[in-house]
C-alpha cells in the first residue's frame, strides 16, 4: 500500500509542497461540502451522498487535469494563452446575450456537446492572466514605455473586465486588481500604475455616484443588486437589520469557538443560503474553529509563498509571470471570499478556490494550479540538467 502511494507520489512532478496544499484543500472541501449540502440534497430530492460523490469526482478530475496540464512544457502556454484569450472574448459576448440566467445574471453557458455548464468568466480570468504573462514577458525590453508597453498590455485587461462587469461586477473588479498586481510584478513603470490607480478611483467614484444618485427606477438589471449589497454593507454593518445571509454567516463564526472541533456538526448549514458554495468558509470555521479557519488562510499564504519561490528560481520572465500571476489571482480570490465570509467586504459571488463546491470553478482552478506546477516542474528539471 505504502508503495502504491509512493509510486503515485513519484509521478507527480513540480513543487511537492503545492501538491500537498492541493490535496489538503480538496480534503477540506469534501468534508465541508458533504456537511453543507444536506439541505440542498433534500431540496433537490436526492440522497445526501450525491453531492459528496460529485465533489469527489470533481476533485479527482481536478487532480487529473492538474497532472495533464503540469506535464505540458510551460513554454507552450504562451501560444495557448493567446488562443484562449481570443476565444474568451466572443464567448463573453455570447454569454451576455444568450447565457443561462441565474439570480438575474447571465453568467453561464452550456457546452453544446458535453452538456457541461460553466461560468464564462472563469475561463476569461484564466485566459487573461496567462495572456498578460505573455504580453508582459514579450514587452520586457521596452516595459517602461507608455505607448509600446503600458497601453497594449492594459487594453486586453480593460476589454475582458468590461465584458464581465455587467453580469458579475465583483469578479471584474477582482480580476482588474489582480491584473494590476501582475503588471506591477511585470515591472510596468510605477508612474503608469499610479496613473492607472488614479483613473480607476475617479471612474469608481463616478460609478458609485451614478448608482446612488439616480432614482431606483432608472437602474437596470443587476444595478439593484449592487446597490443593495453596498448599502447593506455600509449601513447595516453589525446592526440588527443586516442582511440575513451575513447575519447567519456571523452566527456560524460565533458558534465555531477557538479550538472547538465539531466535524459535520454545523447547524448554520440549515440557515445559511449557499453554505456549500460562497459561504463554505464559515461552515469550516463553525466545524473546525478558528484553528481550521486559520489553517485555510495559512494554506493559501503558503501557496503564494511557494509561487513566489518559483518566480525567484524561474529562468525566464514568462514562466515567472505565469506562475506568480496565476498564484496571485487564486490567492486574491481566496482572500476576498474569506473576507466576504467574515463580513469585511460586501457580499460577492466569488468561490473559495478548490474548496467551494462547484463545477467550472474547480476545472479552471485546477488548470491554473497545473500551469503553475508545470513552471515549477520545468525549473526543477532544468536544475537537474544543469547539475547533471
Amino acid at each position, binding site marked *: 500500500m505504502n508503495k502504491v502511494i509512493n509510486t503515485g507520489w513519484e509521478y507527480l512532478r513540480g513543487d511537492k509542497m503545492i501538491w500537498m496544499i492541493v490535496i489538503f484543500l480538496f480534503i477540506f472541501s469534501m468534508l465541508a461540502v458533504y456537511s453543507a449540502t444536506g439541505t440542498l440534497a433534500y*431540496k433537490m430530492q436526492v440522497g445526501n451522498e450525491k453531492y459528496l460523490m460529485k465533489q469527489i469526482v470533481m476533485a479527482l478530475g481536478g487532480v487529473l487535469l492538474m497532472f495533464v496540464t503540469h506535464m505540458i512544457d510551460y513554454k507552450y502556454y504562451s501560444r495557448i494563452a493567446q488562443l484562449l484569450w481570443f476565444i474568451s472574448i466572443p464567448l463573453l459576448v455570447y454569454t451576455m446575450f444568450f447565457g443561462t440566467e441565474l439570480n438575474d445574471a447571465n453568467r453561464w453557458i452550456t457546452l453544446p456537446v458535453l452538456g457541461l455548464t460553466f461560468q464564462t468568466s472563469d475561463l476569461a480570468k484564466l485566459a487573461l492572466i496567462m495572456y498578460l504573462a505573455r504580453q508582459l514577458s514579450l514587452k520586457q525590453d521596452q516595459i517602461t514605455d507608455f505607448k509600446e508597453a503600458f497601453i497594449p498590455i492594459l487594453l486586453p485587461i480593460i476589454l475582458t473586465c468590461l465584458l464581465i462587469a455587467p453580469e458579475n461586477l465583483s469578479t471584474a473588479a477582482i480580476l482588474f486588481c489582480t491584473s494590476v498586481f501582475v503588471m506591477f*510584478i511585470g515591472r510596468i513603470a510605477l508612474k503608469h500604475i499610479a496613473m492607472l490607480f488614479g483613473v480607476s478611483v475617479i471612474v469608481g467614484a463616478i460609478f458609485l455616484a451614478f448608482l446612488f444618485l439616480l432614482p431606483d427606477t432608472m437602474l437596470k438589471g443587476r444595478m439593484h443588486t449592487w446597490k443593495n449589497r453596498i448599502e447593506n454593507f455600509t449601513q447595516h454593518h453589525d446592526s440588527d437589520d443586516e442582511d440575513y445571509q451575513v447575519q447567519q454567516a456571523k*452566527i456560524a463564526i460565533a458558534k465555531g469557538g*477557538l479550538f472547538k472541533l465539531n466535524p459535520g456538526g454545523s447547524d448554520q448549514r*440549515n*440557515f445559511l443560503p449557499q453554505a456549500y458554495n460562497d459561504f463554505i468558509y464559515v461552515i469550516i470555521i463553525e466545524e473546525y474553529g478558528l484553528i481550521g479557519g486559520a489553517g485555510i488562510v495559512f494554506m493559501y*499564504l503558503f501557496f503564494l509563498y511557494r509561487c513566489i519561490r518559483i518566480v*525567484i528560481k524561474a*529562468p525566464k*520572465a514568462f514562466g515567472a509571470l505565469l506562475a506568480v500571476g496565476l498564484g496571485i489571482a487564486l490567492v486574491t480570490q481566496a482572500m476576498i471570499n474569506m473576507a466576504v465570509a467574515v463580513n469585511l467586504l460586501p457580499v460577492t459571488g466569488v468561490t473559495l478556490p478548490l474548496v467551494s463546491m462547484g463545477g467550472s470553478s474547480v476545472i479552471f482552478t485546477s488548470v491554473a494550479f497545473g500551469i503553475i506546477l508545470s513552471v515549477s516542474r520545468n525549473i526543477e528539471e532544468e536544475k537537474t540538467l544543469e547539475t547533471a
Partner: protein
Amino acid sequence: MSKDLFRNRYQVIRIINVRFALIFLMRLFYLQVISTKYVALANNNAIKELDVYPTRGMIYDRKGELIVFNEAIYDLMVTPYETKKAKGFDTLKMCELLGITKEDILARFEGMKKQKGYVRIPNVFAKQLSLKDYSRLQEYMYLFPGFYGQVRTIRKYPHRVAATILGDIGEVDDKQIAKSMGYYKPGDYVGKSGVEKVYEKELGGKRGKKFSFFDVNGRDVGSFGAGEFDTLPISGDNVIATLNIKLQEYAEKLMQNKKGSVVAIEPATGEILALVSSPGYDPNLLCGAVRGKNFNALLTDSLLPLYSRPTLATYPPGSSFKPIVALIALQEGVQGVDYGYPCNQAYNASGVIVHCSHPHPSPTNLQYALAQSCNPYFCQTFRNSLEKNAGMTTAQSYDKWVKICNSFGLGMKTGIDLPSEVRGNIPTVKYFNKIYGEGRWKFATIISLGIGQGEVLTTPLQMANIFACISNKGYWITPHIVKKITDPVTNKDVTHEYEKHIALIDKLHFEPVIEGLFQVVESGTAKAARVEGITLCGKTGTAQNPHGDNHSMFAGFAPKDDTKIAIAVVVENGGYGSTYAAPIASLLVEKYLNDTISAKRLEMEKRMIETNLLSKYGVKTNKSAGMSVETEE
C-alpha cells in the same frame, strides 16, 4: 536574471497578502471571542421562546345559559421532510377524506414553498377542520406520515343572536399593539367590539411562555430546563351577562325584516335584559376562516347590520317624551294633575300650529291627556313650565328644564359598558341663544320640544332608561350588560357596583304620571297592546322623520307596581307607535313575565313576526340574515 527583475516587487505583494490575512484573522477573533451578539443569536436558533395562549373566557346569560364558548377546531399540519422520509402518503385517501383533488394537494404543497425552510417545519395543510372532519381523519392518520392535527379555538354562539352586543374578536391592530407596551404581538386575537372589547382584559386571560429546544431541523424536541422557566397561561375569566337570552332571541325574531331597536332593562338593577339591533346577523359569521369575507359583506350591506342601533341611533322621541314634560311641570309647580286644557285638534303658539294626531274629547286632567297623547295639552304644559315659573325668565326656566332632562340621562351618555354610545341631544339655552340671539326666543320658538320633536334626540337605550327611572319613581342605575365576572378556577365572583342616579323630580309626582301611562295601554293610544293580567304602562311615540315614513315607537314598563321590566321599541318607518312598536313591546313584556303568549294574542304575534318592512328601506331581501355558517352539532 529574473531574481533582479522581480525581487523588490514580489515582496510588496507578499506583504499585502499577509496583512490582509492578518486583518481578517483579527476579524474572526473579534466575531468569535469578543462580540457576544452572535453567540446570543446562535442560541436563538436553538432555544425558542414560544407563546402559550390562554383559553378565552366564556359568556353566560343571566340564567346561566352558555351564550359564547370556544370550539376546538383543528389545523392539519404537515412537515414535508418527515412525509418524504416515510416515502410519501396515501394521497387518494386524503383526497377522499378532505373532499379535495390531487391537484389541490399539489397546489397546497406548492403554496408552502414561499416559507423559508418549509421542508423541515410544520406547515398548515388544511385550515380549521371541524371536530367531525378531524376525527374521521384521525382514524386514518397512520396513512399520512408527517401529518398531525393542531388544536385551535374559535368563538361559537349557539343562539346566533346579540351579535353587536357580544361583539367579535379579530387580529389586533397596530395601534393596540403600540398601546399594549409589548404585550400584544401581530396576529394575536383581541375583542373588536361589544362585550368582547370592553371586557378584553377579563376575557383575554394572560399569555404563558414556554421555552423549547429546537433541533437544527426546526423540530420541537422538548422543553428547556425541564420547564422551570415556563409560565403557565392564565385562562380568561367567564363573564355572566345580564341578558336573558330567551328574551333576546324572541325580540330578534319579532324584529326580523324591520330596522330598529329593542332595549329591555330591569329597572331595580339597571341590568339589560335584551338589547336588539335589527337587522342583526349570525355572530358565527365573524368567526374563524370566514370572518374576512363575511365582515366585508356585512360592512357593505345597506341595512347596516354592524351598526349598533340601541346605543348609536338617535331619534326624536315624539310622544314618548310627554311623561317627562308632564313630570317637569308637576315638579316646578306650574300646573297640577287636575289641570285641564281644551283640545280643538290644533294648538296655536303665536302662529305656529301644532295639530293633534287624532280626535278625542278635551282632556280634563293629566292622565287623560297622556292616554290620548294630546299634543295641544302638552304644548301648553311645556309653555307653562317656561312661563309660569315664579320669578324666573323663560331662559332660566328652560335652563332648569334642561337640567332635569339631563338628570334622566338625556342629552348625555348613560355610561353603559359597551364600546360606543352617543349622547343624543337636549338643546341648551346657549344653543338657542346662538341660533336666535339672547332674549330673542320664547316658548313659541321651541314649542316642538314639548311633544318630543325638534332638536331633542334620544337613543333607544335612553328611552328605555327614562321609563326605568319613572317606574323606580325617581332614580335609575347605570344600565349595564355584565352582571359579574367569574374566575373559572377559583369560582370567585367579581361584581361591579353601578352608580345610582337621582332624577330631579320628587317621588310624589310619579304616581299620577304612572297612572296616566297605565291608562295609555288600558284605554288610550296603545290599547291594542293591552295584555290581560299584566299592568303594562307605557307611551306610544310617532317620531316625524324627514327621510320617509314616521318611526313607530313605544316605551314603557310592567308591572305597574314592583316593576320587572322597562322596555323601549323603535321600528324605523313603521308609522304610528301603536302599529308595531307597542304590540312588539307588549309581546316581549308578556313573554318575559308570563313566559308564554296567551292564545288570544298569538295572531298578533304572528302578524308582528311576519311584518316585512324591507321595501321601505329600498331592499328586497335581508342579505345578512340570509348568510349562514355551517355549524356542527
